């Protein structure tokens, strides 16, 4: 990415502005290892070309909340991509492509609290890169689905993938082609339907507490 800091003239006219009525931002996070196709997935459904930005933390992995200290310490940054989808006159869904590696999770709460849910994008050649992300999402209690990005003829069944990931039955696992808009869209729809079923179950448990007791 070309980034010369604030000296560079950025032309916001490059991308379509949001509607004037837009007043409600929503978030979905796409998590995965390097090169698994996060940006490709975001880009295939986004109405803008994916943009890149970053957040800082100190070497110790703490949030930077005192910039006076940054001069002394070595700070490090975590970069992430994002795109957006205008849902209606009020709501805009932002899709974030985020790295799955350990240091990134220090920033999770600060960046992605309030997300509707997450998609874990996996590459069957490097499944182990997804274990950590899946663990963390389960700990966070954020709803998620797992999508296998199929670059080629799959050598494994989804059941094999589920077993290798040690993925519980209640977490949806789907195939996708992150390059194809329709396929990426179906992954997002799968996620929203999954969150819906969780929310419906939670609402039912609330209405009939004696049943669940």
């Amino acid at each position: 990415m070309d980034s010369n800091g604030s000296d560079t003239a950025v032309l916001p006219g490059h991308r379509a502005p949001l509607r004037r009525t837009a007043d409600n931002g929503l978030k979905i996070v796409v998590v995965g290892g390097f090169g698994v196709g996060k940006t490709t997935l975001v880009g295939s459904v986004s109405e803008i070309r994916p943009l890149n930005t970053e957040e800082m933390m100190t070497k110790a992995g703490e949030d930077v909340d005192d910039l006076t200290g940054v001069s002394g310490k070595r700070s490090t940054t975590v970069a992430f991509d994002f795109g957006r989808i205008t849902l209606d006159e009020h709501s805009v869904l932002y899709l974030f492509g985020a790295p799955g590696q350990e240091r990134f999770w220090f920033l999770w709460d600060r960046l992605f609290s309030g997300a509707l849910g997450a998609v874990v994008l996996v590459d069957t050649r490097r499944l182990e890169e997804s274990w950590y992300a899946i663990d963390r999402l389960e700990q966070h209690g954020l709803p998620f689905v797992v999508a296998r990005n199929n670059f080629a003829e799959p050598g494994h069944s989804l059941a094999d993938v589920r077993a290798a990931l040690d993925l519980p039955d209640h977490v949806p696992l789907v195939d996708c082609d992150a390059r194809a808009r329709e396929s990426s869209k179906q992954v997002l729809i799968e996620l929203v339907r999954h969150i819906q079923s969780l929310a419906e179950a939670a609402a039912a448990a609330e209405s009939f507490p004696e049943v669940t007791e």
Partner: protein
Amino acid sequence: MPGWDDSPDRLYTVTRGRSRPPEHAFDLVTLIVTEQEPVAGMQSEHARILGLCATPTAVVEIAADLALPVSVVKILLGDLLETSRITARHPRFAPTKARLPDLDTLKQVLHGLQRL
């Protein structure tokens, strides 16, 4: 991003040494709208934000356009909010941990995606 890891001094200059936005909790997807045109003599980053946000613009888009870390942009936005040069449209869905979105919101998202 090149230029950042080694130039904390620039961040210090941009924020004039301040560390965090006072009591304004901007989300990545809080939408910012300019209420007053930039004026002469204004800090250039402030002026650029006001230019960008002529139509609603998310905090994260501002950060990308300015090539500044999100936390730095939030500090700059805090300045502009305090002087009423911008307004902030915060996300309606701000769940606490382990709370699920409401069914109406989900239906809306689903419809929006299906129309893609």
